[in-house]
């Protein structure tokens, strides 16, 4: 377990900012309890101070997991978000998309979201923007990136792709063994 290097921090924050924008500062400086980001075996964890200090006494090789896993760095140095960070993303998301009940299932199986399945979308969402998806009764079910802006979405036909899939809560079942 170690701090993120400057390069890593940059890559990681850039990815987070895609989804939660300025709200990232609320993650970094929390009022209730000090939290920090830590790397352990390529995975980035969001931990509170107390847990972090306790975990320091565990050798690197034996430490399996701590706090909330946000994702991992690939071998080429890119960062990939994981579904486990959805709680925080949903809380602070800048742009949201609501999914109609009939296409919820398709999204949970890892498919992209079609125009037909989109219930609502935040006004003035740009294209290629990270968005968090909610079911119509406001339960977060994953995140992705938009293919079109809100403006362009109106003109699209129902079979066109609107949100590209990144993660969905179905992964809790599908990738259970590698997730945490």
């Amino acid at each position, binding site marked *: 377990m170690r701090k993120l290097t400057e390069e890593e921090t940059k890559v990681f924050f850039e990815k987070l900012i895609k989804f939660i924008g300025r709200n990232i*500062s609320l993650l970094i*400086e929390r009022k209730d309890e000090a939290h*920090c980001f830590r790397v352990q075996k390529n995975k980035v964890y969001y931990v509170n101070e107390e847990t972090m200090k306790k975990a320091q006494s565990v050798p690197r090789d034996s430490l399996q997991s701590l706090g909330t896993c946000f994702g991992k760095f690939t071998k080429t140095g890119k960062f990939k978000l994981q579904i486990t960070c959805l709680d925080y993303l949903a809380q602070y998301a800048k742009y949201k998309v609501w999914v109609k009940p009939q296409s919820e299932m398709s999204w949970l199986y890892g498919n992209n979201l079609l125009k037909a399945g989109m219930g609502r979308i935040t006004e003035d969402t740009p294209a290629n923007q990270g968005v968090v998806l909610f079911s119509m009764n406001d339960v977060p079910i994953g995140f992705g990136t938009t293919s079109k802006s809100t403006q362009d979405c109106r003109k699209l036909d129902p079979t066109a792709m609107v949100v590209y899939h990144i993660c969905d809560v179905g992964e809790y079942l599908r990738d259970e063994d590698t997730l945490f």
Partner: protein
Amino acid sequence: MSTTTTSSTTAPEGVINASDILAQNKFSSHLVEKEDSLLYDLGNLCAFDFSSLNKAEYNENPEEYINKISRDNVQLLITRMFQLDSKVVESGALALLPKPLTPIPRMKPIPEAKQQTRWEAFAAIKDIKKRKKDSKVWDETHKEWRHSWGYKRANDEGENFAMYANPNNPEQDPFQKLIDDKKERVDKNKRLEQRNLDESHKRSSSMVGSNNGLDFSKENRGQIKNDVRNTLNVAKVSTASMGKFDKVLEGDKKLPTRGVKRLAGLGDNNIQGESENSLKMVKRILNKEEGILNVDKATNQFITNENKENMKKKFKDGGRPIKKSKK
């Protein structure tokens, strides 16, 4: 029980008799009914058959014909080998092969001779021979044989607890002088060694770019390319910041950073400072992103403004705006 008694009277099961095989005529005889016109090279375990093929027989059944010839020839070769002198060893007999007759080319090119060093060239002219030095030398002070160099060597001046000062230069420390002289000799030797190396390769890393004896022939191309790339890589980062703040050109590869990457350690528990640093980083990233004009937003604003103005104009001109029919 009855079966075992019957089988014991004849041959036991699983044992093959040579006479049975011969009766079945499964294998051809070791005697070849063919004129022995082969050329032998027993040293290479080779035989060459120069006789021409029988066309009629070949056309009839080519594969069988070729197989038959090959078998006969191999049989002849092996018969020849059994006629050679042999040597009996524990596990059987070994044939003593004669010297090979057919020259076979070597796989790899003949290695090039190493280039002479300057001393070797000089010694060759002056006819100076290398002489072996004794590794042990008689030490007068200790009255024993000691190694000529290294730890506890014979006649080691530095071992003395006192030395005469140089009468011309009494300030000088004679012990230090020994060390300095030694260092100088080592340095000189290194310098000369490097010179010999450079001369043998006709190039040195510092000479890249100059006309250093490498012509642009095909075999030097890889070397020249390598040299240029290395020099360019060094030149690229030869700025005041060692290349840290340089603009990376489009299509230019990022150079691998040298030195060890320092990873933040475990012991640092200052979360306050850490989050402050992170916030600074976030600010930097956001500033960069917001510097870019949001084209979508701008066009949307422009369009709505235009629409508003149009509406205003229509109302100003008097009369109610006409509803457009749907297309």
